[in-house]
């Protein structure tokens, strides 16, 4: 299957969901015009990142009418966006929403919101509990949010559920400016090169640009093929709508020539893992 994915590397306005909604509509309309099948926005694309006490004030249930304009556009294109979710359990979450055929198809709550150094997420949001892998018109999709991808266990779970593509919504602040590329960008690219290569799937990484209180988000969004090849690159620091043409046949080819998932024995993983868990409570 061939399809076109749009990476919406935007700079949201901190705490202003109305303005950000307009930006989502604007980028989505452009992507529809370019006949993209899917548009992916960054983490917390509807709210901005460094919300602090604003978190609860911008939180929305995923069924909120606020998203209606995007559900309408979502009849023509699948849309993935980041928002603060006002959970049914009365917690707030850093979440990703997948819109398809005019309705919300899936909502994923970030599993590992970082809380150390410059990060303060768990002060304001709760942790999700579940990896979501679901069928879409472009194949099996998993969504992960930023820090999640530094946990190979989550990428492994997406792989174990036989995902064709992992959509990574990111708000990765820049650090490390010694090398040719920002150090954190190197880290992300190396990780995703490795994941795609061994897990034989696509990864679309969408990072925002702009600044929240001095934290600078570098952008650098890209798509990586199952062979670790970069398909599209949105560049550093500027807003961009970048397109990638994906041929999902590459997954099949890769998994035939390098059949790791076929070899994988989930029972062995499970048995060993259960033992490790058991031992760790000794």
């Amino acid at each position, binding site marked *: 299957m061939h399809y076109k994915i749009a990476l919406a590397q935007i700079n949201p306005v901190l705490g202003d969901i109305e303005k950000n909604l307009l930006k989502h509509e604007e980028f989505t309309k452009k992507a529809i015009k370019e006949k993209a099948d899917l548009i992916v926005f960054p983490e917390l694309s509807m709210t901005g990142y460094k919300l602090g*006490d604003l978190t609860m004030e911008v939180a929305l249930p995923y069924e909120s009418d606020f998203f209606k304009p995007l559900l309408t556009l979502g009849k023509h294109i699948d849309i993935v966006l980041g928002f603060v979710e006002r959970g049914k359990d009365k917690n707030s979450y850093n979440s990703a929403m997948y819109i398809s055929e005019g309705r919300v198809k899936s909502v994923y709550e970030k599993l590992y919101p970082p809380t150390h150094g410059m990060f303060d997420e768990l002060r304001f949001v709760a942790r999700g509990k579940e990896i979501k892998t679901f069928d879409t018109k472009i194949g099996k999709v998993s969504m992960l949010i930023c820090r999640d991808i530094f946990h190979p266990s989550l990428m492994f779970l997406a792989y174990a559920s036989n995902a064709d593509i992992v959509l990574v919504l990111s708000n990765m602040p820049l650090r490390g400016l010694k090398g040719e590329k920002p150090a954190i960008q190197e880290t992300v690219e190396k990780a995703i090169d490795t994941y795609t290569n061994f897990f034989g799937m696509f990864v679309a990484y969408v990072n925002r640009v702009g600044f929240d209180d001095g934290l600078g988000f570098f952008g650098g969004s890209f798509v990586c093929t199952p062979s670790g090849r970069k398909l599209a690159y949105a560049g550093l620091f500027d807003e961009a709508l970048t397109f990638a043409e994906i041929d999902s046949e590459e997954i099949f080819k890769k998994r035939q020539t390098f059949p790791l998932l076929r070899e994988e024995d989930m029972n062995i993983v499970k048995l060993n893992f259960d033992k490790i868990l058991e031992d760790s409570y000794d």
Partner: protein
Amino acid sequence: MTDLSLNYEVLSKFLVYFIKEEVQSNKFNKVVLGLSGGLDSAVVAYLSAEALGKENVIGILMPYKLSSPDSLNDALLIAKKIGIKHETFEITDIVDQYFKKINTTDKMRIGNFLSRVRMSILFDRTREYDAIVMGTGNKSEIMLGYTTWYGDMAAGLYPIGDLYKTQVFELAKFMKIPEKILNKPPSADLWPGQKDEDELGAVYRELDSVLYLYIDERKSMEEIISLGHSKKLVQNVIRRVNSTQFKRTIPPVAKFSARTLGIDFLYPHDMGR
């Protein structure tokens, strides 16, 4: 020496984006800054002009009677070279008026007063120009506390606040700031003959290595000494950093209510752009 090198091409771009966005998110288009004739204010003026356009950068030169004439000339050189609007406002009469009534020879006290008078003038000018004050402090002096609290530290943004002086120097070289500015010894010029490196007791390259190891790499005093830095210097740097933390934080508030500034009233700085 510790490797403090940076990719100055990407860094300068990053700082230009920072200035553009943070000035605008504070709802301003213009900035004012004190142009001292030194390296830090020159670098911030260059970056600001690139980010906002030279017509939106106003340099204020504020000499005192004991200031080095070179400082004024170098500041003028910078302003003209970039083509920014600039004005000279001599602070001698304001300062002397005060010290006519206050009898002191304490250089530190006079120096701090000069710095705070300059701060008052800059903030007054922001009303006139509808502008924000750009901070010109670098990471070395801010971390060493070698800055005047509510004097040169007072600003809306710190664009070079995460760069050690050695890195500011390299960035200035990359940006092709005139040699004359690059080559003079760093000085606050608060009294004749004052030099940063005399007062701080070491050259910046060495101070910065120790600061970097202590702050960025979280090495202990013993570890830094074992890497070949003199015990006296390391102790001095660490004492300076630790004893000046009050300058880098909001003052303690006696908390008793549900939400208290500086403690748990945690709205972002950039909200409501």
